[in-house]
């Protein structure tokens, strides 16, 4: 059975591996940090957040200051999907952001049906004819 953990990551409970949901690539042990199986890139904030006012004239430009923030991008090494982005202090280690208790996850899902798509929860409808409880 596989559990969908994020938009791009799932855990195979039988093999106990993190996997890419886009290309099925096996990333690493589900007991470990999935980021260790990904490619990482230190993105210049100016590539993502334009200086909407002239950086030659002004100290603050709407573009984050790369001396003050780093943007770490994490890619699937097989399909190149950007699975995670971390805004962090310059030079800080990437966070071990999802440390899963795999045994508990197995126990929990032994009582559940496998999902191939995530549930989304109730929808908020503009149509006032509907009434939700």
């Amino acid at each position, binding site marked *: 059975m596989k559990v*969908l*953990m994020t*938009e*791009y990551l799932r855990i195979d409970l039988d093999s106990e591996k993190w996997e890419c949901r886009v290309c099925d690539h096996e990333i690493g042990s589900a007991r470990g940090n999935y980021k*260790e199986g*990904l*490619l*990482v*890139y*230190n993105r210049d904030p100016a590539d*993502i*957040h*334009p200086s*909407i*006012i*002239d950086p030659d*004239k*002004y*100290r*603050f*430009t*709407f*573009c*984050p*200051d790369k*001396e*003050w*923030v*780093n*943007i770490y*991008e*994490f*890619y699937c*090494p097989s*399909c*190149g*999907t*950007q*699975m*995670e*982005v*971390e*805004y*962090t*202090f310059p*030079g*800080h*280690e*990437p*966070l*071990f*952001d*999802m*440390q899963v*208790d795999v045994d508990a*996850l197995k126990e929990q899902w032994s009582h559940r049906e496998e*999902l191939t798509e*995530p549930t*989304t*929860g109730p929808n908020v409808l503009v149509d006032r004819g509907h009434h939700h409880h």
Partner: protein
Amino acid sequence: MNKPIDLENVAKDQELIKKFLHETTLFLGPDPEIIRDHKIMPRTEYEEKCVNEYTDLNQIASIRDRLQAACEEGFEMVEQMGAAPGAKWGDIITGIYSASGDLTIGSAGGVLIFSVLVHHPIKFIIKNWIDEKTVGVKEGDGFIHNDSRYGNVHNTDQSMILPVFHEGKLVCWVASTVHEGENGAIEPGGMPSMAETPFDEGLKMSPFKVVENYEIKRDLLTFLQNSVREPKLQYEDMKVKLFACMRLEKRIKEVLEIEGPDALTACLRYTNDSVMDEVRRRISEWPDMTVRTHVIMDSTLRENALLKVNLAVTKKGDRLIFDFSGSSPEITNRAINTQLPGLKGMVAQSFMNHVWPDLPRGQAGFSPIEVITPNSSIVDCSYAAPNSQSLMSIFTGFTVAQHATAKFLYSIPEKYTRVLAPWYNMINTFIWGGVNQHGETLGNLCADLNGMGGGARMDRDGEHALAPIFATMADIGEQEMNEEEVPFLQLVSKKMTINTQAPGKFRGGMGYTMIVATKDSDQWGFMTSCVGSKAPPIQGLFGGYACGSFPLSKVTDVDVYDVLLNEPEKFKHSIPEIMNEQPFEGADYSTHHMGLGFDLSKRGELFMISRGSGGGYGDPLERDPHLVIQDIEESLITPDWAKKLYHVIFNEETLKIDKEATKAERDTMRTQRKAQGLPYDEFVKKYVKPHPPENIPFYGSWNGDNDVVYAGSLDDKRDAKNPGPIYMTHPKDVRISELEAELTAVRDEAGISPKDTRK
């Protein structure tokens, strides 16, 4: 052989000692026993009896519905009649509290954070004033409170608290809270960034009796009016809150008349207990894991600095623990620290807004959740630390909570909301004050603060300028109505700031531009109080980006009202046009961080800011090209940046998408990522440092060692459990030192000695 211990006598002695200590206490300061506890009080014997007696859930539901309706009625009264701008746009709440002081039923709208705060002052009243012969708690009494150290976000928020009696017996409490604004602090508007001690923060009301026989005591009222800049507002809103509480009391008495006090008590207790049971059940459905995140606070509002707000959330079984260890130590002379209840309130708010909005608004929804904080930190400061700008640390506290919970929620089969990226979290708005065009002294802020950009969701974009993170149903008010009271105009407003979106498969909801200029007063000024001018204070989710940074721009030495009259074609309606084209000759154009201290403005000078964007969700290369084009059509993004961020190929004139070319371009980008990305170990070796940046003051833990926190420089490392005081130098003194050093260097070079060399 020793005599066996006489337990009964020991207990008696302890009781005597407790009584003696209580009677001889010289100062009833903030009580950690109350302030550090957010849990629902244990069942009393009486509650036990009532719950066992009244088991008809239909009856309980019917009572609860009537109480809920009463809370909405009270809310409506305050919103319609309240004088504070905060009241008009819903920065309020009304609620019903159990006899032990726990909020059980609160108004559905408004600032939900209050729903986990006002129990603190009520419990203080219960503990200290009921048996105090100089105070006492009687029918018709009303208590006022605003001091954050006794359980509040900040002291602009004032509560009115009334006990409800039935045949001489206290059965419950009602309270109404409003963000009033003015409180007599060193800067107008109630949230001074300049406060360096709690004594700079204005009126601090520990809970005290201000109403007897349902009437406000005029002597105390006069004292309070003299303590603030808006004496009329102080009176009006005390009356409004009192009347709202009295209406709630009336509705409760109607219930008591029909159902009796036992049924009411059963309803309140059953509601709290069943919500707590449901919360534990829902937590059990989450995956057992630890999620770690942090966000950057890039300012103290006085100077730029890097401060960490750190969070690890652990879920195990039905326990959910929020651990803020590693966050920045408190800054002893800066206002951005928070008292613990404010932080907890914001974490609770993240659940009420975005995780379990279907649960009743009350304290029970948060009661089972545990919170660990380092003492004397910006997220749990000492009583000696100023905290009038606690919004900075509790809003970033909200964001780490929201970011972490999203990672738990994705896999759960039964969801109550969409999984979403962090909301924008700063109040990019103008706080204002001075003498208005009618000669009245005012101090408050633009309701635009309520228009924060929503986070992108798992299946759609975030909403623009939708709601603040502290209230899902607050309004941004009518600017034209405000302008009747204030001597400035919003020359540009509600226009989305182009190219400021947080990209993703679904982008964050964006914020709009505000350009203001004073017109009809010589005594009027503005301040802004946000972090995020150098580094975004949020994160994106699952491959989506955060927003960019949002500074303050100013144009001085200009009167734009003259320009508008004489050369209207010169006025431009966006920050980039005004700042890049510099259309007004002789004017001075400058940029600043968003911690603008109160700044007197001259007629026609421009203060320009943008509200922020919520976080993006998912890989931008997966964004539907049609959504990209729609954003171009709606002037949210320029074609060049649409191409750069989303790699969509389209005809610039017709905006027709070339599907094949887009797919090919995106495949190329994925290949490029694989070429530019480094394996994790190599990346760590190349970029990760054993310590924080050397040239920027950093506060907080580094690389996961939460026992040690940095306090502004590499050689100032402290024990996280007991960091001690941290004083920052006044930014003007910093500047003076820089200039003195420059001057000395110039003098040395020119061989000039100072006129007076005496020490």
